[in-house]
């Protein structure tokens, strides 16, 4: 205490205080924030090996041997198992470049092969891992919070209920109604193509689960009849003309024809 009291006015004191404060906040942050999910440790080396073979056969032409990237495709070191599971599991990879963005198509690998590919890519460097069943369970999320989060983070690209929307130059945000909870989570985690990454700091895992709870309720039957694609007033206007005015003009012609 005496020492403290004596050195309180030392001109190095503020610096020391600052350092302590920084260390403390850093420590608390490290404690509170869940460690970034790092995979690969669980995968057996046999899986990694078969993943490497699959990768060399199917992916290396674009991503390069060792997945270090070429002019045609980015390096996959550090993208993590989640990115591979999403890209290959939705059929985006192996890519067929023809349009403005790599599009989903029928999945080309079975679940084991995808897991092997993911294990291989995860072994190259730490990155986000595939979420557990608990993390993506819609029943554990709150759809009301999910809706609020979806409206501020996703609706500008994916439409209010996830029906999909247009981006510039022919790119688009796809409909989310057929997407599995795991792929929803992975998309947020890895931010495919034009989509931003929503890491732990922007959306916590609980918040991601809330969003999944909201999205998985969409795309089904809606109150009030046919949802007309849930794309808003344009389709309503189209139907008003086609069905409404169509029927009424038909009726008018019929009444008119009944006379002279």
């Amino acid at each position: 205490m005496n020492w403290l009291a004596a050195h309180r006015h030392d001109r190095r004191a503020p610096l020391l205080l600052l350092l302590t404060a920084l260390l403390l906040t850093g420590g608390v942050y490290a404690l509170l924030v869940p460690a970034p999910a790092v995979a690969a440790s669980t995968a057996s080396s046999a899986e990694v090996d078969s993943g490497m073979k699959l990768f060399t056969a199917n992916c290396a032409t674009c991503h390069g041997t060792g997945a270090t990237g070429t002019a045609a495709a980015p390096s996959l070191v550090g993208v993590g198992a989640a990115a591979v599971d999403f890209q290959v599991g939705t059929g985006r990879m192996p890519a067929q470049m023809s349009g403005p963005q790599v599009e989903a198509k029928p999945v080309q690998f079975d679940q084991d092969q995808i897991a092997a590919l993911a294990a291989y890519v995860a072994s190259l460097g730490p990155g986000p891992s595939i979420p557990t069943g608990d993390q993506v369970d819609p029943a554990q999320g709150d759809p009301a919070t999910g809706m609020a989060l979806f409206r501020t983070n996703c609706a500008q690209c994916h439409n209010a209920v996830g029906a999909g929307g247009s981006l510039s130059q022919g790119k688009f945000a796809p409909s989310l109604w057929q997407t599995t909870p795991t792929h929803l989570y992975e998309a947020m985690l890895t931010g495919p193509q034009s989509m931003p990454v929503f890491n732990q700091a922007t959306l916590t895992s609980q918040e991601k689960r809330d969003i999944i709870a909201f999205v998985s309720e969409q795309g089904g039957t809606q109150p009030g009849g046919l949802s007309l694609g849930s794309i808003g007033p344009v389709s309503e206007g189209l139907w008003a003309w086609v069905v409404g005015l169509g029927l009424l003009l038909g009726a008018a012609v019929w009444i008119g024809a009944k006379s002279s």
Partner: protein
Amino acid sequence: MTSPAAATADFLDQRTGLGAAVKEFARKVFPDHWSFLLGEIALYSFVTLLISGTFLTMFFVPSMTEVTYSGPWASLQGTRMSEAFASTLRLSFEVRGGLLMRQVHHWAALIFMASIITHMMRVFFTGAFRKPRELNWVVGFTLLILGLAAGFSGYSLPDDVLSGNGLRISDGVLRAVPIIGSYGSYFLFGGEFPGEALIPRLFTVHILLVPGLILALVGLHLFMVVLAKHTQYPGSGRTDRNVVGFPLFPIYVAKAGGFFFIVFGVIALMAATMQINPVWNYGPYDPSPVSAGSQPDWYMLFLDGALRLMPGGVEVVIANFTVPLNVLIPAMVVPGILFTALAAYPFIEAYATGDKREHHVLDRPRNRPFRTAFGVSLLVAFFVLVLAGSNDLIATHFHLSINDITWVLRFALFIAPAAAFMVTKRMCLALQRRDREIVLHGHEHGTIVRFESGEYIEVHQPLNEHERWIRVQHEPIRPLQVAPAEDSRGVRRKGYAADLRRARLSRLFYADRVEPVTPAELAASHSHGTHDELPPAPSGQELVAGGRRSLVADDRAPGDGH
């Protein structure tokens, strides 16, 4: 003993003299044509709006006070929202029949506007706006604007994200007006956007002011229809001095009354099976989120489209005042041009035609090439703007680039109406030429006759009197001629310059024309035939129903060009 109904009628009649008016009204003659029912669709959907809207007022709370939602819709549990939005959700999920009524109201609004536009198209293309009906055209045009106002104010009431986006855009447009813009916005919203005052204000506008005005003007509109009598399509026996049709009572009343139930039925059917404006999907208004696919109802889409087409960044700064042309041009100049052209057209046409007579027989659109082409080009411009307003949906549904669509539509806005004008005008002239051809030579018949001399000719079938009447009844309209600049004594005439301008306009309208066949031409075309059985050229009024049909050979030598 008189029946109670008769007694009541008698009571009213003795005190008001209503009987005579009713009798007079019941004898009004109404010509029959399906296109005369378009205005009725508008009327009946408006009645449907009144009925369903009155129901909505019983449950809707026009207030922006914040409440926390605790109703049945799970995705909004615990969300903070305005009472207006909460009461819209209550209407949708808790009030019995509330969702159906909301959907009836909104579908009826879309159909109301669609029928107004089709009704206007009928009036425009048939020239029903000519004297003495120009004023009623203006009344109808005002009804169109009031319909837009009703739709927009109603769309904004539920206070969801889409309606708030619409208000945000209107606020932006208002602020774009130099100098007074921001004051106007503060005045309208009672402070900074969005404020707390707007929804109650819009409510008054939506359920009192605008419907009241519409009701009054609909009354005036119908009164003027009765006053000027109904127009009729050309046909034998129909002239500018009579009306051919059924008396209003009972035939027409029965038909029209039945038609009300058809209109109501179609709207109810749509409301019961097709969702409209699912506000629970959009959520309560909050200025930050804008979701993909945010658009106004279709009748406002052209304004959104104009804003989407306008290149950004076109701003001029004059003495510290920014004049944002990138907002002012699409939001004010473009609709200004479209609407002014629409409202003023009857007066412009009358000026160019120099015709002061009354007209009760409608035009066939082909007989007025300029007007028809002009109307089509206005519609095309409107349609291009509607497409522009839907550019993002076109992009996703047809896998196109939104940037390409926007660029194509930017050019299309100027090129497509011009092209549509030329094509329509050419088509009208061609149809008129074809009419002449048929009147002079009859229908082609596909029968070839070979004479003994070896000559082949095609047999033509002459028109019956009805068919011919329709094709020759109209008067040719020629461009106005200008009197010389100087009178007989060589004094320069006043107003010569104005006359010149008028003649130039008139030439624009009528320089290209195909004139109807005259009786003399008709007679001439047949006089050189020996086996001609045609009756003399018709002279309008004496025509009776049923024409004679006879086969006549067209005696012109083959290959003499027809």
